[in-house]
């Protein structure tokens, strides 16, 4: 009896001891599961391992987000070395939130069904994909949670290298080429980022982000500071695919396997956006970024250009994946617009759109995976009349598409509301108007899909009668995201509410 009790209390103690280490385990668990996947030599086992690794990751992140919301910042010292000497993992409202998105999407994508033909990997070696996938997730999570700038770079490279690999295993041969251009651009971006870090280190002698931000107050060398800011900004902009540094993105998303597109679209750019927020608001601070560097003068026009060019390009695409990729460029424009408005409300809009866009674009790319699975094509013209054959999948596409348009009652409206309100608060009437007009372009490309799917007769030569609804394992995740699009459009406490806290924290200048 007592033995049992003591075992139980031992368990409880060890769990609470373990929970002390959750901050680092979030990164370590997927990273160490990657070699396990590699060694398992079996696709199915690897899938199981990655699912459980990521699920545990997700639960830990939820636990940590709860702690952050209750207690404030959670700091973890790697190896017990106090910062700024040692590396610190630091969870606050904003990065716990981003980490949650990454962990959530990564977990959802794994069990999602797939067509073996989507990957150019010999049968029986699909375990490799999961190994790379876990590494990529681990890198992205690491970028979120680390409090050390050089560590951010390390994780950035881990996630990028594995992302190149994931793109390259797409079924078409053009995947290789698009992965190569992604690699080229990504490496340049990484290099810029590294140079920026070098300059900051040279000026302050520290790499810890909090420490860095404090020491930068005393730095008087404006020119080095400006150059460091510029290089860091350009480096992250490439990773984020800010217009006009977006050229790598459409091809990468188009030729990557559909699951990978869903994963990357929902996470990689979001983490890059988070790093951009950190650089602008935490390291340099709002005043320095906007009043000395005049960031808004460059970022505002670029954001608006992205919103328009991305949407207009999306209208003319014939491949649905490419359409969604260009739409992503436009949506990234909305996020950076949130930064460039230099107002608290606008920033809330940018941050909440990070979350909202992850839901919508993740869901849409997964729906595309369903279509590819049954139809064997992602050409819009081949999809004529598919609504009747795959009503659930295409119904989700309509809901998610309405989200992209920003119809009230969906998450897109929440983002749009904050962005337009932010612009009007700054009395930027033209910007507010352009933001709304650009969302009309989304109506055009979304409605093209709706009309093709629901109101057209099948194209001759396509055996539409043989197309069936995708299996439940695929439709359920898609609908989970579609339902979330509506849920978080009405109950915004856990999306916009958290974004408000995060924005207030960033905007206040306190790290």
């Amino acid at each position, binding site marked *: 009896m007592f033995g049992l009790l003591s075992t139980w209390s031992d368990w409880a103690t060890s769990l609470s001891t373990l929970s002390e280490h959750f901050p680092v385990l979030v990164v370590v668990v997927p990273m160490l599961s990657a070699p396990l996947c590699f060694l398992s030599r079996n696709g199915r086992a690897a899938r199981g391992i990655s699912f459980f690794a990521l699920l545990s990751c997700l639960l830990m992140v939820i636990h940590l987000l709860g702690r952050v919301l209750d207690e404030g910042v959670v700091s973890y010292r790697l190896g017990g070395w106090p910062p700024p000497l040692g590396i610190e993992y630091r969870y606050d409202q904003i990065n716990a939130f981003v980490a949650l998105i990454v962990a959530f999407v990564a977990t959802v994508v794994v069990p999602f069904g797939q067509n073996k033909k989507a990957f150019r990997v010999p049968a029986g070696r699909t375990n490799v994909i999961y190994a790379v996938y876990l590494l990529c997730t681990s890198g992205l999570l690491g970028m979120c949670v680390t409090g050390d700038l050089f560590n951010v770079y390390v994780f950035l490279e881990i996630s990028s290298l594995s992302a190149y690999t994931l793109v390259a295993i797409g079924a078409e041969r053009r995947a290789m080429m698009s992965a190569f251009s992604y690699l080229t651009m990504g490496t340049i971006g990484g290099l810029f980022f590294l140079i920026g870090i070098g300059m900051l280190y040279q000026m302050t002698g520290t790499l810890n982000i909090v420490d860095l931000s404090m020491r930068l107050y005393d730095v008087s060398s404006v020119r080095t500071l400006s150059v460091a800011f510029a290089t860091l900004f350009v480096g992250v902009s490439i990773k984020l695919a800010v217009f006009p540094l977006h050229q790598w993105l459409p091809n990468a998303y188009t030729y990557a396997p559909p699951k990978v597109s869903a994963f990357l679209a929902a996470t990689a750019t979001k983490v890059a956006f988070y790093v951009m927020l950190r650089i602008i608001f935490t390291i340099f601070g709002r005043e320095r970024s906007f009043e000395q560097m005049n960031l808004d003068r460059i970022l505002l026009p670029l954001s608006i250009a992205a919103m328009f060019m991305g949407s207009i390009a999306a209208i003319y695409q014939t491949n649905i994946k490419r359409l969604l990729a260009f739409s992503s460029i436009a949506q990234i424009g909305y996020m950076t617009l949130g930064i460039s408005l230099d107002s608290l409300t606008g920033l809330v809009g940018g941050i909440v759109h990070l979350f909202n866009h992850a839901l919508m674009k993740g869901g849409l790319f997964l729906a595309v995976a369903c279509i590819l699975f049954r139809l064997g094509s992602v050409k819009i013209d081949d999809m004529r009349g598919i609504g009747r054959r795959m009503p659930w999948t295409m119904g989700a596409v309509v809901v998610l598409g309405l989200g992209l348009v*920003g119809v009230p009652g969906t998450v897109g409206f929440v983002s749009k509301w904050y962005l337009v309100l932010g612009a009007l608060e700054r009395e930027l009437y033209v910007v507010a108007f352009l933001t709304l007009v650009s969302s009309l372009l989304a109506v055009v490309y979304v409605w093209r899909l709706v009309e093709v799917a629901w109101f057209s007769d099948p194209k001759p030569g396509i055996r539409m009668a043989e197309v069936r609804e995708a299996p439940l394992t695929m439709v359920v995740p898609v609908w989970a995201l579609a339902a979330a699009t509506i849920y978080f459009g009405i109950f915004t406490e856990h999306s916009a509410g958290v974004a408000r806290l995060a924005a207030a924290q960033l905007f206040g200048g306190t790290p």
Partner: protein
Amino acid sequence: MTPELAIQLALFSPCVGAVLVLLSGRWQNVRDTISILAGIATLYFVIRIAGYHADEARLALEVVDVMPGLTLAFEVEPLGLVYALVAAGLWPLTSLYAFGYMRGHHEKNQTRFFVCFAAAIAAALGIAFARNLFTLFLFYELLTFSTYPLVTHAGTEAAKQAGRKYLGILVSTSVAFLLFAIVWTYAVSGTLEFRPGGILDGKLNPALTPVLLLTFAFGIGKAALMPFHKWLPAAMVAPTPVSALLHAVAVVKAGVFSIVKIVVYVFGIDFLRQGNASLWLAYIAAFTVLSASVVALSKDNLKARLAYSTISQLAYIVLGAAIATPNAIVGSGMHIAMHAAAKITLFFCAGAIMVATHKTNVSQMRGLGRRMPVTFTAFFIASLSIIGLPPTGGSWSKMFLAFGAVDAHQAVFAGVYMLSSLLSIGYLMPVVGRAFFCRADAAGAINAHGADAAHGDAEHGDHGDVNGGLHEAPLACVLPLSITALLCFALFYFARDLYALLLPIVRDTTIGG
């Protein structure tokens, strides 16, 4: 039943109806019965709400706080109640009519049709009871998207083209202008609630008031103010029941209702009258009244003619809102009901003619009155109401609108109303005149005969002289149009109640009536 529950049930019963229709799609009779029952249930709950309103119970329902300042909430006030009664009252009749029309016309996808129809009614009621601009906007967009499948119902290239125009104009105006105006209102006043007397007084720069008002008016594309009126004629490709209920009643009235509501509860009449902020809107509306009437004269297709007549009549209401005197506002509110009853009758008649004889153009309708006396009598009565002659309801609302214009010392707008009446005689009376007093021309007779034969109508098929036979549309079509025609009469006698219902919305203004 508590008042809150009544609001919930009124909003839910069309939704439940939509789901049940979807589930019972396989059994045609069950489906159509459910559709009508859902309509009756909705009407019952709206009447209950009206009863609570008469008892001065507080009728409000808060659903959820979406964001700080944005609440999904409902509240019943007189103007919304009139609109809700109109939409809910005419829905069961339209269902009955659609029942006859869709079968008589052998339309495809009838289940989708009835589902979207019910969804559109739910959205219309949401607009009617909206407590703030956010709720109104949400249901406004929902109404657009739920009616799109109805417009493209035929699935032909022409229908898709029309659907694009429909969605394109309605969504782009609502997002680019209406949403802009809503966010602007929020940025200025910090709230989106509808309040008697408005929320902008003392907060908005008076120089910007006309700009904001025009942004609202153009943003509400459903009001079909020129130059954003093209979607309405385009939407006429839809089956006639859709044109009747949605594009003569629910959708377009949602537009003008929103404008009146915004004028009364966001701007406030007193605030708007300061410095004549609404003068530009009045000119645009007056221009729309006249030019749409003139265009209607030139249309040979009956539905297109009625569509332009609708545009003109909607602008009456917008003009009344822009004049913004108590009489004009009450007249606008009354005209929502009066025009709804009359215009739905006209569309029902157009559809009945099409089902019975396959004729769509006015020039083909010579002598049809003898074959379809009930239909054309109803058409005549409804025409009187549109023109504004007693003893039909339209005469009262037009009178109050004209009084309102005179109160505002802008007799020119009263002249606009009168001139438009003359024009409407010009485009409506020839239809009736030709049908009753002209003899069917030879070509028409052969066509009609051919159509009859094609219908397999043996009873009339052997009539050599088509003029002699009585050939009405199915009873399910004729019954609703007779009821709505009688409603036009009834509204003449019940106008006092409508007036008493609407008067409180302008009670607190300082301008004498």
